[in-house]
Structures are given as structure tokens and as C-alpha cells.
């Protein structure tokens, strides 16, 4: 009998020879992620009655959700996070402005294929892009992990999604995800491990692959998985060499893990899936998701012409270099429409630097865009682009929930970076090929 990726990954993390769907295991994650919520988690941690984190090297902490601090309360929160990082000797700490946790942990190869990462962030599914098992958990669970190093997890059933062929011109991994979620519903993958297979997936760039497991949080998934290939291993090996400089108060010179593929896992050919779905990439058009549900998605044509006041390019879903490149190509030589703000927030400092070198940032500024500090930006309504009542935003983010961007009387539409850029230029939701 064969095993799925999830069964293999959680058996490994629990130190068991094997595990099957439905089994509850005590898993020991390789990395435990938290972000601006670290101070609140530290408070819970202290209520347990433990002074020291059991394995400090397994913690990764990034300040990204509201950065730099927009209010005195946020500043106090950040100060408490930094104090905790110092006291506990946390090495994997990413300061304000380094970027969004999932992006910077990927760029720094803090997690590797086959490993388990649990994070107090629902988009911890992200790490499936490299064939790691990533799942979101709650704050109290992170506190428990700091204290004990282990947590109960139910081994999920798996759904196999095969995407054949090749995505068409102007169609991205984001459109693929909005299409699948629209077809199967926001709870279509509830509690499940979503495995992606097929030619269309194999042919995606690494940055495009990152979009897919990230978006699977909106499908109800526990985790998602793309089979890691040589391109993934090359990226991670290079990432280890390039590693983001560690802050001064941490220990230096962690030994690079040379063989980044050592733990890579692949499902068996005879693994058992709860369900299987096949999609033809050629059938998928550019998609837009309307308010206030991610599964309220439809082909772009359905929403074309809807007036927008804000366009947001960024987030852990679509704030990477190729996303900025797609948008810059649309915006170059054009201007943001009167009455529209285009907010561009690179997913990390590295993305920002590369985008500057390639001239994308100049393209955006010349078109009238606003460039923000690498981080989550206005995605979850903290700062840097809150909407007013009655306003409409088209965004490259992963969520369009009511009130998500700080104002329940506003509307959020989700789309790929080129569509967001074209809409900023047109002032209405627009197909970039029709500009």
C-alpha cells in the first residue's frame, strides 16, 4: 500500500515508520513560525509556567504585518517581540522591512523540502511550493510548541489535483487557484492535503509555484504540496549561500545545510486519495474573485468595467519579482487613472532591490504609483492603504473578506498582477490585453 505526501511527511515529523490518514500523531516541527503576534504568544507562553523555549533554533519570527509600527500600540508590540527574541536567543529573526514571513523564510531557506513547518499564520500552507509540509495553527498552539516541541496533528486525507497542458497567455497560477476554488468551493479542500501534479504545474516558474499552496488556505486546506524538482533544489542551495544577513544580536555563521534535497518526499504511485480532480490548463481564463468570498470567482469578463479607487499589488501571494515584472510591463509608459491609487508593496527587501535594478520601481513611480515598505501592507487592514466606505479595491492578495482591508463597507476584488495593473490604468476592472 502506498502513502501520500501528507502521510509520509507527518510520519517523519512524528518519528514513526508510517502514518495513515485519520491517525492523530504527536509531530515535532522543524520550524515554528510566528510574526507580529509573537508578543501575544509570549504572554500565553508565560502563563504555561515555562521560562525558556525548548529549542530556540526551531523558531522563526518575522515582523511583517504592521511595519514599520503605525501606532504606539504596534510599536509597543514590536518592542516586546524584540525583547523576546533577545531573551530567548532566537536566530531566525527578520526585522521590520525584510519582508513577509513566508517570502523571507523561503528566500533564506529556513525550511527545506520534506520538513514540517507550523505557523501562527493561516498562509503557512505556502511552503508546499518546495514540497515542505506547512500548516497554520493558533497562537496557543505555538506557545505549546515553544514549551514542548510537539503538537497533535491529525494526518489529513489527500486530494490529488492534476493540471494538464500549459496555462494560456495572460493566465497565471493565481487564475488557476481562483478557478479551482470557484469550481470546488472555499470549503472544497477542508481539512485536506492538496497535492498538485501534472505538466502545467511542472512548467511553472518557482515564483508561480509559490502562489498555489499559499492560495490553498482559501480552499480550506490543511496543507498543499507541489513535487520538488531540481529547480527547487537549486533555488534553495543558492538561497543558503545568499542568506539574509542575520541581525547583530544573534549567533553567527550557521553551518549551511548543503544537501537541500536530502529530506524531499514524493507520494507513492499507489497512494490513496480521498478524491482526484483533473483540470486542463487551456480551459482556464484570467479570473477575478468578487466580494466578499474567494470562491465568488468568475472569468475576468464577468467583472470588466467595475470602477475601482484603489489597486494593490503585493502580499505573500503576488508580491514577488515576476508579479512586479508582469505589472510593470502593463504600466510602462502609461499612467494610473485619475481618482485611482496604485499601491505597490514588494514581498521582501530582496524583491524590492531586484525590482529597482530591473527598472520596475521606476516604471511604477513614473506611472504615479505609491511604493510601500516590504511587508503585508493593507492586506489585512492594519495600515498603508485602508479603504473608505463605498470604495472598491482590486488586489493581488489572497482574501477579499468583508472588512478585510479595514472597512466593512468597502469591496475587494482579487486578480492577477497584470489585471490589477491594467485596472489601475483604466480606472475600471480591465483585461491588460485590451488596454
Amino acid at each position: 500500500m502506498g502513502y501520500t505526501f501528507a502521510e509520509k511527511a507527518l510520519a517523519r515529523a512524528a518519528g514513526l515508520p508510517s502514518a495513515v490518514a485519520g491517525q492523530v500523531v504527536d509531530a515535532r516541527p522543524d520550524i515554528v513560525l510566528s510574526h507580529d503576534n509573537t508578543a501575544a504568544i509570549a504572554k500565553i507562553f508565560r502563563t504555561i509556567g515555562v521560562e525558556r523555549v525548548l529549542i530556540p533554533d526551531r523558531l522563526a519570527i518575522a515582523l511583517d504585518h504592521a511595519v514599520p509600527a503605525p501606532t504606539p500600540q504596534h510599536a509597543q508590540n514590536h518592542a516586546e517581540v524584540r525583547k523576546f527574541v533577545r531573551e530567548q536567543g532566537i536566530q531566525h529573526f527578520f526585522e521590520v522591512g525584510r519582508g513577509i514571513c513566508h517570502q523571507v523564510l523561503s528566500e533564506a531557506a529556513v525550511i527545506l523540502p520534506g520538513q514540517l513547518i507550523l505557523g501562527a499564520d493561516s498562509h503557512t500552507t505556502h511552503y508546499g511550493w518546495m514540497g515542505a509540509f506547512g500548516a497554520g495553527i493558533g497562537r496557543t498552539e505555538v506557545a505549546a510548541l515553544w514549551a514542548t516541541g510537539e503538537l497533535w496533528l491529525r494526518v489529513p486525507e489527500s486530494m490529488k489535483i492534476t493540471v494538464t497542458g500549459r496555462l494560456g497567455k495572460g493566465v497565471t497560477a493565481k487564475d488557476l487557484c481562483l478557478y479551482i476554488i470557484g469550481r470546488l468551493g472555499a470549503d472544497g479542500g477542508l481539512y485536506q492535503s492538496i497535492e498538485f501534479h501534472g505538466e502545467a504545474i511542472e512548467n511553472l516558474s518557482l515564483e508561480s509555484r509559490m502562489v498555489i499552496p499559499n492560495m490553498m488556505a482559501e480552499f480550506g486546506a490543511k496543507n498543499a504540496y507541489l513535487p520538488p524538482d531540481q529547480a527547487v533544489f537549486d533555488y534553495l542551495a543558492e538561497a543558503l549561500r545568499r542568506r539574509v544577513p542575520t541581525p547583530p544580536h544573534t549567533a553567527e555563521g550557521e553551518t549551511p545545510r548543503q544537501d537541500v534535497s536530502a529530506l524531499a518526499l514524493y507520494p507513492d504511485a499507489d497512494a490513496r486519495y480521498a478524491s482526484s480532480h483533473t483540470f486542463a490548463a487551456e480551459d482556464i481564463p484570467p479570473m477575478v474573485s468578487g466580494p466578499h468570498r474567494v470562491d465568488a470567482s468568475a472569468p475576468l469578463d464577468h467583472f470588466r468595467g467595475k470602477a475601482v479607487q484603489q489597486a494593490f499589488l503585493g502580499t505573500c501571494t503576488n508580491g514577488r519579482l515576476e508579479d512586479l515584472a508582469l505589472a510593470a510591463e502593463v504600466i510602462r509608459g502609461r499612467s494610473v487613472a485619475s481618482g485611482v491609487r496604485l499601491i505597490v508593496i514588494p514581498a521582501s527587501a530582496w524583491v524590492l532591490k531586484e525590482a529597482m535594478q530591473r527598472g520596475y520601481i521606476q516604471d511604477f513611480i513614473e506611472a504615479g504609483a505609491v511604493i510601500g515598505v516590504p511587508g503585508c501592507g493593507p492586506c489585512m487592514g492594519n495600515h498603508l492603504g485602508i479603504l473608505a466606505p463605498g470604495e472598491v479595491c482590486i488586489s493581488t492578495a489572497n482574501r477579499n473578506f468583508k472588512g478585510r482591508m479595514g472597512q466593512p463597507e468597502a469591496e475587494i476584488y482579487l486578480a492577477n498582477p497584470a489585471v490589477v495593473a491594467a485596472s489601475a490604468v483604466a480606472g475600471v476592472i480591465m483585461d491588460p490585453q485590451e488596454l
Partner: protein
Amino acid sequence: MDKTPSSIPPISGRAWKYGDGVNTDVIFPGKYTYTLREPAEIAAHALEDLDPQFAAQAQPGDIILAGKNWGNGSSREQAVTCLKYKGIAAIVAKSFGRIYFRNGINQGLLLITCAEAVDAAQPGDILTIDTAQSVILLRGHPYPFPPLSPTALSIIAAGGLVQHVRNKLGITRSDVVAVSEGGG
């Protein structure tokens, strides 16, 4: 297995009822997640963007009934704690977002999956939930539900994950100076 007792006494409460796909952002808006820390403050914003009447009118012991995928979205624990601090005794839904489900268990909030009871109940009905028998009683009719896992029951019975971990590590309550936000 740990030695925590896994029995939870039956509870009865008045029903509030909501539909499918209620997400974490309307249960507890993201704009408050790093600034509000006191239980009373957090409770005051419960369901703010879903039902503005709720925070003012809900009473301790009330039960929430919901459709499919209650609590989908963010991992924010306040989407559970805002209701726990409000005194909500249990949530009965057709299904839950998976992180929400874990957060509920870990905060010692009873989460039950029972589509039949949700369909049958009206707002204001009185429900009795008996976890020992895995049944909901509504107007004299029994609605069985799948039992929670032993792990989940032992966490709820301990009063939440914090106390469950203390039990596991052999830490007694008297060892702990302050138990506040997020504690059992």
C-alpha cells in the same frame, strides 16, 4: 495518553443562528488583532462585521449555530476567544475552518459538527449538548453527532491547551504567577 479526565458535563443554552461561510474577519476584524488585548475589549468586538447586535445582546451560556465552514480564513485566535470571553458555551456548525476548529478546542470552547441540528433549530431555541452521549437535544428530539477525538476531549476537559500542556509537563497552577489572556 495523558491522565486528564475527558468528561464534559452537558450544557444548555439559547441559540444564535448564522449561515454558511462565515469567516474570521467578520467574527473578529483584523484591524484589532495587534492592539486589543483585554478580554472585555476583545469580547466587545465579537461578530462586529457579521451581526452588530450580537456583542450587546449575547448572554453567557448562549450557543452559536452556523452553516458550512464557520471560521474559515485567518489563524487569529481572537475569532475564538472573542466568543469565549463573551461567554458562548458552544458552537454547533455544519463544518468548521480547520484552524478555527483547533483554536476552539485549544481554548476549551466546545465545537460540535452537526448539520441536522443546525437545520432544525431556530434562533432563540434552547439546545442541550451532551458530549458524553454525543447527542444534541432540541425540542425533545435527539440529534447525534460524531464524537470528538480523545485528544480533543482531553484538551477541552482540561480547560484548554495551556492547562493541558501544564498537566503534561507536571506544572501545577500554584507554580504559575499570572494566568490571563489566552490561558485556559
